[in-house]
């Protein structure tokens, strides 16, 4: 089977500054480091076969969204490589829309930026509007939309663009039940077409229903990657244990992870 996405040793470093002045000094003074390093991702490597659906799980702050954004090419990785076979579309709740423009204008603008021609845009427009169920609101400015309407619009655009690889970042949790079912159907259709998909969600039941593979991230490193059945059970057990931990134990657990995340070139082997 062909590999659709290959992620190799990807790390993402953010700098944490205590003061604004540190940020400026860090830019201006060469050969000297200011601020504290924080690795949102550390040496993440995995490959995804074409047509499989990967669920990204992990507790808050484990780097799921960062990874989704890096695969989508929205933010650059600090080190490491990503090769993806085909165009990638990311669907997120705050899928960059211009609040002052109407829904219709936003559709046109988004498609324009993605490189579609005038003719293609007018062809796709109606379908998008219909799928988003925005009928009479479509000519209203997007700032007046509810969050469900916004994410419906974002989802409909991304889906219509017909990407080879689709990343869904908790976008479905905002819409109502009817729409999220409709979206799931659409995604099932994509699955049948053999498209690769990533799915970021906290909903374990959705994951079980939908994903072939689960990538479990914990504080920036891959803890487990494999078929859904195996990994999701371990993750569920972990969640229960974690929930059962006392407040101080939870904090201790987090602190040790945070410590690791601010060190450089840590090998992921340690946690396994």
């Amino acid at each position, binding site marked *: 089977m062909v590999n659709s996405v290959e992620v190799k040793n990807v790390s993402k470093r*953010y700098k944490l500054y205590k003061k604004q002045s540190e940020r*400026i000094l860090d*830019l201006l003074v060469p050969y000297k480091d200011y601020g504290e390093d924080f690795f949102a991702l550390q040496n993440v490597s995995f490959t995804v076969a074409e047509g499989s659906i990967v669920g990204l799980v992990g507790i808050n702050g484990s780097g799921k969204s960062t990874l989704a954004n890096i695969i*989508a*090419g*929205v*933010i*650059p990785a600090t080190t490491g490589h990503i090769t993806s076979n085909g165009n990638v579309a*990311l669907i997120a709740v*705050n*899928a*960059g*829309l*211009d609040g*002052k*423009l109407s829904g219709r*204008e936003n559709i*046109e*603008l988004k498609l*324009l*930026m*993605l490189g579609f021609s005038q003719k293609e845009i007018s062809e796709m427009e109606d379908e998008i509007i219909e799928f988003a169920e925005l009928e009479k609101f479509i000519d209203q*400015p997007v700032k007046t939309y509810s969050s469900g309407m916004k994410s419906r619009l974002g989802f409909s655009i991304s889906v219509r663009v017909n990407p080879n690889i689709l990343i869904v970042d908790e976008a479905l949790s905002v819409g109502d039940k009817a729409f999220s079912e409709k979206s799931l159907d659409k995604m099932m259709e994509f699955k049948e077409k053999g498209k690769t998909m990533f799915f970021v969600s906290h909903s374990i039941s959705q994951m079980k229903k939908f994903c072939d593979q689960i990538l479990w991230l914990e504080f920036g490193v891959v803890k487990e990657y494999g078929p859904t059945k195996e990994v999701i059970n371990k993750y569920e057990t972990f969640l229960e244990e974690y929930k059962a931990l006392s407040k101080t134990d939870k904090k201790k657990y987090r602190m040790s992870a945070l410590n690791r995340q601010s060190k450089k070139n840590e090998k992921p082997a340690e946690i396994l």
Partner: protein
Amino acid sequence: MKSAITVIKEQVKFSYLIRRLSIYELRSLTRGNYLGAAWEIINPAIQILIYWFVFGFGIRQRADVGDIPYFQWMFAGILVWFLINNSVMKSTKSIYSKIRMLAKMNFPMSVIPNYTIFAQLYPHLVLLTIGTIVLQFIGYPISIYYLQLPIYIIGLLMFLFSLSLITSTLATIIRDVQMLMQSIMRMLLYLSPILWPPTSLPDSWQPLMKLNPFYYIIEGYRYSLLGEGWYFLENPTYTLYFIGVLAITFLVGSYLHVKFRSQFIDFL
């Protein structure tokens, strides 16, 4: 040098995108007010009147500038200032305010400041047309010297774009640059030949005032609109100076832009 070529190539390749995006930008800017796009005319008109009242009527006691009445003199110079001021302010914040919308790293980012400037060109052309009509009735009919106007418009757009590459990059990294540019632009309004003629300063000050490249453009506009002569031909050294400043600004701007653009999103 290499980054300069990259930036030029992107502008050529995506010129269609720039034109289309600038229209959406303009719509986004004018939406939300009842009078919408009319403000692009009302606002300058109010400013022109107040400047005429304060400087022409009040401070200068209706004295002419050379042999040109003050209102006509100020009017011919200030028309282009609205384009300069709006473009600089909007393009400086263009990258950090729009990067989330683009959402893809491989989007040609140098296009962003360009289309925000382009969006300012349409109201300017309307304003310029109205300005020309007004000038017909106050003693300055259209003349052969209007032919040089495109030179200054194109020169100005090129300079504004080059400058925006620098300011938009710096403003994305350090947000304070936006405030700094606001102060600088307010200062430049008084240091350019718009509201009062700097020729009244001692001779030794003249070259200093002319270091400001907008001086060249504003005087060029004035020569065209008032039919005073061929400004770029009559001041060859100054023309060369402007081209030199333009080239340096562009080289520095594209270097900075290309160097930092992959990290822009991290600075948000």
